[in-house]
């Protein structure tokens, strides 16, 4: 039967994740960026990433011999939801494991997997993702960064932008054009390279969410041919698979659940819950639906079934909920809902930050409009 209850093992796993997350609280509170980051799953912290690796949380779905725990993607989503509830800064974790690491695990050569996955799992090797370019945002297939094969190396020229965590990451995962003769989608390949390779320059700039995004300049960057992920010219498949993982944003939903719990508690403390219960109930329903969409997409990935439309639904549901919850929370709390970055304020001053950060949630990782197209075409078969 359709059984959407957690198993005993999943309950225990979430409990373990809860205890671990609580143990990181002193580390978090000491970090000023943690306080001003409005969507903490977008937060950057090498220290937290190392702790996640030491505790065996990175690469949960990978085999044990490469540092994983042999869990399912549904299990991983349940754990990430708990990490999000505790507002762990997860950007490096998500990039290194969930999107890039899982793509390397699926498409990488045996040598590449053996070289990169164990240190990723230990939290010692972190990645950023160089996909978007100034002229290739939603229309990613129009990217122009180019890699030319010279002997056993590729030489890369180009310009990436909106690159999360590039200022902290050890390596970069690059979508580049390796053939100009092939059709737009067929001429793309994926390479990985250390971020300190000569010719790579990273510039970071502050953004509304509270952290940074980066642009990455690639000028004659030499990348070993062995660092090709998947087949030459077949990178579009790798990129799309990567996005399927990226769009399951269970961690964001955990953070939103924390906000909703805190909002309900605050309204109860101040005798305002009775007037607000209906709006709170509707938000709880929307959250429950978004969580189920997220877990359903993870389940499809576990089964190896097409997940593009389901992942797009999961991402879009979470993004819209983030914006709605931020608006509703400020509306219900009134002026105290504008608190931003003050740990002593109601809800630790997170509501103002969420309002800032969530406006980007329908833009990053696939804009709402692109996700709608994916759902309409891949899910409903509309043409």
């Amino acid at each position, binding site marked *: 039967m*359709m059984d959407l209850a957690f198993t005993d093992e999943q309950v225990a796993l979430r409990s373990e994740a809860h205890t671990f997350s609580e143990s990181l609280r002193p580390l978090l509170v000491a970090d000023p960026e943690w306080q001003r980051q409005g969507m903490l799953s977008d937060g950057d912290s090498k220290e937290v990433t190392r702790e996640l690796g030491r505790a065996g949380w990175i690469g949960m779905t990978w085999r044990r011999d490469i540092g994983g725990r042999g869990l399912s993607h549904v299990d991983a989503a349940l754990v990430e939801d708990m990490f999000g509830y505790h507002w762990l800064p997860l950007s490096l974790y998500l990039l290194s494991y969930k999107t890039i690491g899982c793509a390397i695990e699926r498409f990488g050569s045996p040598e590449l997997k053996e070289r990169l996955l164990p240190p990723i799992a230990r939290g010692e090797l972190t990645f950023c993702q160089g996909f978007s370019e100034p002229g290739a945002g939603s229309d990613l297939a129009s990217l122009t960064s180019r890699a030319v094969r010279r002997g056993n190396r590729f030489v890369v020229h180009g310009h990436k932008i909106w690159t999360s965590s590039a200022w902290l990451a050890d390596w970069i995962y690059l979508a580049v054009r390796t053939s100009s003769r092939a059709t737009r989608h067929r001429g793309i390949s994926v390479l990985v390279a250390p971020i300190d390779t000569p010719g790579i320059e990273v510039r970071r700039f502050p953004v509304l969410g509270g952290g940074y995004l980066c642009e990455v300049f690639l000028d004659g960057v030499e990348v070993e041919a062995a660092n090709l992920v998947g087949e030459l010219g077949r990178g579009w498949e790798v990129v799309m698979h990567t996005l399927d993982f990226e769009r399951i944003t269970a961690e964001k939903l955990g953070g939103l659940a924390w906000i909703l719990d805190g909002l309900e508690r605050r309204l109860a403390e101040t005798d305002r819950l009775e007037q607000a219960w209906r709006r709170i109930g509707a938000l709880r329903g929307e959250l*429950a639906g978004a969580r189920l*969409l997220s*877990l359903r997409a993870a389940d499809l990935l576990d089964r190896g079934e097409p997940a593009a439309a389901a992942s797009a639904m999961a991402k879009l549901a979470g993004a819209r909920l983030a914006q709605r919850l931020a608006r509703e929370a400020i509306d219900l709390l009134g002026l105290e809902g504008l608190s931003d970055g003050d740990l002593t304020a109601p809800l630790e001053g997170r509501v103002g930050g969420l309002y800032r950060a969530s406006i980007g949630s329908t833009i990053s990782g696939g804009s709402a409009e692109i996700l709608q197209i994916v*759902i309409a075409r891949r899910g409903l078969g509309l043409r």
Partner: protein
Amino acid sequence: MRFDVSDEHRLFADSVRSAIGDWEPPRDPDLGGWHDDRDDALAERLAATGWAELWAGSDLLGPAVAGGLELGRAVAPACLIDEAALGAPLAVEGRARHGLQAKSLALPLRRGGLALGTPTSDPQPELSLDGSGTVLLDVSIGGELEPVAAHACWSAWSAATLAYLAGLAVRALELTVEHARTREQFGGPIAAIPAVQSRLADAALAVDALTLLAWSSISDERSLPAPELLWAGASCCEVTASAHQVHGAIGFALETGLHRYYRRARAMHTWTAAVCAATH
């Protein structure tokens, strides 16, 4: 966690679908009039599937969802849920749905309570948005159910109602996708128009979330009636409104029958919200 529907529940859904047969509510009702779409023959056929025992235990929540989805798809009378799950037509805020002939009524009480009551005045038909046979009446509260029994009844009612809302939305979307693929404008099907695709994508997202939420009600221990019902009702209304928008003028014509989903969604949402308020 498992996301596939069991053979057992598929079979039950099949038997509910067979019981519904070619029954359908009127396509061309007298708008603004009083209607009661209760159908005793349909109720009897449905009872033969075991539907009438919903209140009897948590192991029947799966069939409640499987059957509720089919009832929603068919825009079947709401009394089929109320009477199977609560034992009598539902009465709240001085109104009962399908209450014209009712000898007893199911009354929601604070904190998830449930009582059976009896009418103490002649029921007065109230002209209403859909054909749920709404009557105005006074009620005297009889015996209150034990909390465990009340919880079981509300669990079944919430599961079946969530599923009914999902079923309404599922069918409205199916009809609309079909229409978008066949209706041609600007030299091609309107399904190719990005604005139409966006609207249908949002509807599909809501439909999938509603369906998952309904199935999750089998295993969720929650306060009842579930607060999720408030979101589910509103989402169902949005899907049916989108169905009208994409159908365009033809959907506005009564003969297409699309209005049944739109009107029932709003009525179910409003009744559900009233129950949530009364049991809060």
